[in-house]
């Protein structure tokens, strides 16, 4: 479905990605783990078209989308929940969700999806009139995911959905991520919490200073000694 080939991306003056390649197949959950500054978010931003690679290709369904602007890429069915959630703070919860469906014209479908999101996250329905900026961290994460779902993505990019959340909320959100995947959405998940990410994903890539150093089925990587040492905190 998505194939990233040897991309080099510059962020400010930094050569952030030095030839990253990865592949995501329909229906999978693929995770990207690595430490701070390894280039995980840059990879997602390059796929979404916010950043453009200096070299390399990003193939979605076989066509190169590396140099398309971000707002066009959303139209192809790639939605992102960015790092830090980026809720629009002075728009209501309902308006935030509506903006998630900005490019869609099928009123009936949008209405159904809105109901689905409220079903998935009942707390958002309660707070639908509240401004986005007033929600708690966990609620904001739910809103961010809900908003991305409103775009009916074929591929959902999730950047650190566990960041700064209480363990019980994290557990709930990861449950929902798996459910979204079961309902037919392909997912690329970026996480620092490797344990969690390897637990829910089918395959994984390890990113270190702008390069993919390891990749394979998540279950195998979870037992890999290097991964255990570097990311799972074992001695």
């Amino acid at each position, binding site marked *: 479905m998505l194939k990233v080939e040897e991309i*080099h991306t*510059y962020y400010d*003056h930094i*050569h952030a990605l030095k030839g990253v390649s990865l592949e995501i197949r329909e229906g999978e959950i693929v995770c990207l783990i690595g430490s701070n500054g390894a280039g995980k978010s840059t990879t997602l931003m390059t796929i979404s078209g916010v950043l453009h690679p*200096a*070299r390399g290709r990003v193939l979605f369904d076989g066509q190169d989308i590396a140099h398309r602007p971000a707002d066009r890429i959303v139209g192809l069915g790639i939605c992102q929940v960015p790092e830090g959630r980026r809720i629009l703070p002075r728009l209501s919860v309902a308006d935030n969700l509506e903006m998630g469906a900005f490019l869609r014209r099928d009123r009936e479908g949008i209405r159904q999806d809105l109901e689905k999101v409220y079903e998935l996250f009942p707390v958002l329905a309660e707070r639908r009139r509240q401004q986005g900026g007033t929600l708690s961290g966990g609620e904001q994460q739910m809103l961010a995911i809900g908003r991305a779902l409103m775009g009916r993505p074929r591929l959902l990019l999730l950047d650190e959905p566990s960041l700064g959340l209480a363990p019980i909320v994290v557990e709930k959100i990861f449950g929902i991520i798996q459910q979204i995947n079961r309902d037919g959405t392909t997912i690329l998940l970026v996480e620092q919490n490797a344990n969690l990410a390897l637990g829910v994903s089918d395959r994984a890539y390890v990113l270190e200073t702008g390069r993919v150093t390891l990749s394979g089925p998540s279950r195998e990587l979870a037992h890999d000694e290097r991964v255990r040492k570097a990311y799972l905190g074992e001695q």
Partner: protein
Amino acid sequence: MRKELVKFAVVMLWAFGLLFPMLGAQIGFETFTFEWSRLVRVMGFVAVAYGALAAQRAVSAHRKRGHRDPGPGLAERVPPLWGWGILAAVALAFPWFADNYARDVAINVLIYVALGLGLNIVVGLAGLLDLGYIAFYAVGAYTYALLNTHFGVPFWLALPIGCVISAGAGAFIGYPTLKMRGDYLAIVTLGFGEIIRIVLNNWDRVTEGPNGILGIKAPGLYYPKLTEAGLTLGHVYLKNLTCLYYIALVIAVVTIIGVYRLDHSRVGRAWVSIREDETAAELTGIDTLRMKLLAYMLGAIFAGLAGAFYAAKVRYVNPSSFVFLESALVLCIVVLGGMGSIPGIILAAAAIIVLPEVFRDLELYRMLAFGGAMTLMMVYRPEGLIPARRRRLELHAREAFAEEEGNA
């Protein structure tokens, strides 16, 4: 090609739509006529201008594939010392080969060189947009005018006083405004400039209002004289344009040296760091408020200097010399010459003062051209005619860097 033609057609249609009511409609008292000839001429001009810009874009797009360097400016092609030497020789010899009219224009150029370089401290070095700069010029001019007409204070004594009062005015205006975000500063200085002009216009008892102050003395030359009363000071007033020219030259040279020294001092580096990233500058221990205030006051001092000289030269001041358009003109000099670039500003001051004199018929189009040039400059060559070395490196560093790494 087809795409280009469609774009051209759209632009021309758009321009026609915008221009035809403004250019064509002739409104009299209860009459209305439509004039085509002007519209046709201007549309022709738009077509040519669009063609030129399109060609320029095509060329630069082509060059981009080759090398990206904007090319060395004039300043780097001529060895600096030689350049300055020739310039100095020409400046010194000039009045002996010119008539009074040319001397008068040359004096104006020198005044604007001082003003441009003074504003350059604020805009070019410290990165603060000041749209009321001419107010300090007015302060200098009125200080000398008032001191001279009321108390008979001579020019040479009034000059430092004018500088001090201008600096004081700079501090007074700067202190409350410099705490603000930079772009608010622009509008507040614009407001202050207007306030000063409105006050000059209305405070009749002191400033004589719109009539202005007459009877200001020219700078005097003092020499010891032996009379019956013993040794006294005799003096002559230097009304002669050649003498005034040399005084203006001294003021301009003092400004050039002053600004050069400032730029290459610790203070200059502090200003650059404030311009690039104020928060970072603050974190490295620079007292940003004090530094900005300093820039503001120093800028004001040079304007005060030029203002006092202006009053002495014309021997008459009135508020209409200190309108917003004058501020805009000085700003134009800084922008066109290249922010932070001393040779650029000298060249731009000369061009902006001399060109309208040469093309007298086009006088009306002067500000139109300057306004348009300002925007074009920002879009196509933000570093100015003769870019300051440091500035050019800053403006093109990112591209150069990305390219270098990209080719690696």
